[in-house]
């Protein structure tokens, strides 16, 4: 089988760049989407990107701490999801909408 | 590239055996249920309905593959695939027996081997975690199916099942963690190897017999219960409660897609029984030591089976079995012979024990289905959160205490 025309191993910077891309995608989702649940998911996407960075650096520094941190990020994300979704449910119960643009009673 | 070829071959073999096993598992279930209910079960197609699974498959494939108009196409089609995929993946990390060594064979100048490989697709050193993760993903299939088919019964079924699976995943994970605590590894192979040997020379050193007696056994029971719920089996089969939810999440599914869900379910059953066997029942280690002749148990069983079938064939009361039963007898005699070949026996004995244990667990599945009624939904959740979960936590805590103290 002929050797593949790609480097044997991926440089570290690729991982970091990937996480940057994902993070930017998350931000984009946060900026452009109007469904509050989707916005919430974009936040989760950002968290994941950050986790990837953690893991990558923990690989580079040959320390396990990065993993621990991303583990904590996961835990916090879980708690956040639980509470956030509960809030979304309540909001929907009271306002019958999920459009964040319509949830602007704080303004003015 | 030897590795890839080997992997592909193994994958093919495992997949073939597994799928066949699934088909026949259904046949087995129908038979056993029938006998539990004093029926005879399928026996039209082939002797004793042995060809029934084939017939079913043919029927399902040839059925019209219709897609209801009101469904969400993408997910409607995606759901069964997801279900099957996540049902099949876990098999990859399950070892079926000890290492397999094939001496070098030369066929027409092409030399193959010698091949030395483990009898599993891959030995992940976090196999248990892997299985947990994948089975966690299995929810999506059901949930999506329920949602996509845009039908209130299906939606209810989907919601129920996703809630139920999430709820029962916790106790299952905790029950799984209990033996891990004692065996102190996450790789199935290591776990099984650490269960070899016998206590006082005759009690097998399986996990359920290890430690302070009741705890591991409790963990086993908890795992079994939670697994029943995970696989949506009776008495926890609310997502597909035929009579209240008109078959729940796969109401709108026909033909092969419907079959896919069933495959997924039975595959999950197999996975769970394998995991139970590996973690609790000592994997491929025999029930009693070799010096008491455990190596000769399989041949004896097969020979006995052969004699039995010959006897029945001889009896005039069973005219239909004149030809089939002798065939069965001959086959089993052959099997017994194979088991007596020393080179092969080293390989086949573990396999035999493993399959025997897994089949026992599967039989329990069917047995329960034939015995117990279905839970009500609130009872189900109540049971999960107020009994199963605390029990698992307490059990895990006690075992942890014991491990810490010794």
């Amino acid at each position: 089988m002929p050797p593949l025309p790609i480097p044997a191993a991926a440089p570290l910077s690729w991982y970091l760049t990937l996480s940057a891309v994902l993070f930017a995608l998350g931000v984009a989702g946060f900026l452009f989407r109007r469904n509050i649940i989707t916005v919430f998911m974009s936040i989760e996407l950002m968290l994941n990107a950050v986790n990837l960075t953690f893991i990558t650096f923990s690989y580079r520094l040959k320390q396990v701490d990065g993993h621990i941190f991303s583990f904590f990020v996961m835990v916090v994300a879980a708690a956040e999801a639980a509470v956030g979704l509960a809030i979304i449910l309540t909001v929907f119960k009271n306002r019958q909408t999920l459009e964040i643009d319509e949830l602007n009673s704080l303004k003015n | 590239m030897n590795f890839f070829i080997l992997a592909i071959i193994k994958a093919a073999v495992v997949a073939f055996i597994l799928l066949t096993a699934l088909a026949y598992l259904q046949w087995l279930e129908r038979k056993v249920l029938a006998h539990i209910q004093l029926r005879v079960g399928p026996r039209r197609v082939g002797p004793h309905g042995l060809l029934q699974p084939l017939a079913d498959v043919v029927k399902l494939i040839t059925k019209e593959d219709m897609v209801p108009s009101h469904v969400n196409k993408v997910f409607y089609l995606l759901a069964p695939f997801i279900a099957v995929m996540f049902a099949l993946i876990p098999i990859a990390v399950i070892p079926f027996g000890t290492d397999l060594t094939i001496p070098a064979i030369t066929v027409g100048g092409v030399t193959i081997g010698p091949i030395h490989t483990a009898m599993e697709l891959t030995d992940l050193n976090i196999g248990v975690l892997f299985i947990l993760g994948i089975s966690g993903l299995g929810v999506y299939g059901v949930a999506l199916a329920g949602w996509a088919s845009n039908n209130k019964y299906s939606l209810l079924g989907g919601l129920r099942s996703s809630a139920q699976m999430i709820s029962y995943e916790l106790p299952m994970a905790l029950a799984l963690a209990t033996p891990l605590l004692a065996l102190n590894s996450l790789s199935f192979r290591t776990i099984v190897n650490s269960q070899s040997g016998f206590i006082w020379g005759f009690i097998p050193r399986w996990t359920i017999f290890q430690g302070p007696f009741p705890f591991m056994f409790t963990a086993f029971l908890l795992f079994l219960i939670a697994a029943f719920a995970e696989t949506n089996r009776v008495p926890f089969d609310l997502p597909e409660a035929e009579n209240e939810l008109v078959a729940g999440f796969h109401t709108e599914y026909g033909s092969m897609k419907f079959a896919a869900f069933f495959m997924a379910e039975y595959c999950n059953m197999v996975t769970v029984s394998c995991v139970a066997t590996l973690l609790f029942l000592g994997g491929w280690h025999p029930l009693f030591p070799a010096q008491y002749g455990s190596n000769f148990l399989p041949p004896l069983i097969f020979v006995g089976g052969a004699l039995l079938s010959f006897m029945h064939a001889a009896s005039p009361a069973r005219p239909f079995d004149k030809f089939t039963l002798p065939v069965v007898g001959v086959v089993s005699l052959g099997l017994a012979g194979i088991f007596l070949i020393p080179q092969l026996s080293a390989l086949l004995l573990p396999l035999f024990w493993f399959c025997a244990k897994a089949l026992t667990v599967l039989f329990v599945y069917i047995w329960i289905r034939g015995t117990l009624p279905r839970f009500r939904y609130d009872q189900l959740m109540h049971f999960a959160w107020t009994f199963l979960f605390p029990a698992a936590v307490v059990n895990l805590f006690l075992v942890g205490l014991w491990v810490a103290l010794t």
Partner: protein
Amino acid sequence: MDALLFMIFAAVAVVCGLNLVLQTHPISSALSLVGVMAALAALYLLLGGEFIAAAQLVVYAGAIMVLFIFVIMLLNAGTEHKALKGSWAKYAGVPLLVALLGMVAYLVQRMSPPTENVVFGEFRKGNPVEIGHALFTTYLLPFEVTSVLILIAILGAIVLARKEIE
């Protein structure tokens, strides 16, 4: 080989991420997010984070996202219609993000030389043993605190989502 795997999974991740942003239906977004997570789990494995990969699958994909889908189904959230009034952020957002991305990418390239590669299996500390050890010795206090946090979150969720009792 590693690079190939990386490319595959990175591609999956990016495509799914794009999908998450572009799809109009929450369910599609949710599923693409699950895809991202699965791909990331694979990448974690490449980076030697066995435990974290499994945790990613179990916690994120297996629990959190199911919760999302659950809620989406419960609210039966439909596709979102076009924005009635767009805020300036929508128009300023793209260039901003491009700038951000470009800068980060440039800096990353500049800071970490392309010669240092990620070789699978070179980092062996990611296994459950190490993680557990670190978690229960160095990071014991944060660990316990997170448990309390989760407890609070559970209570909060229950209080928020329960039916109003008249």
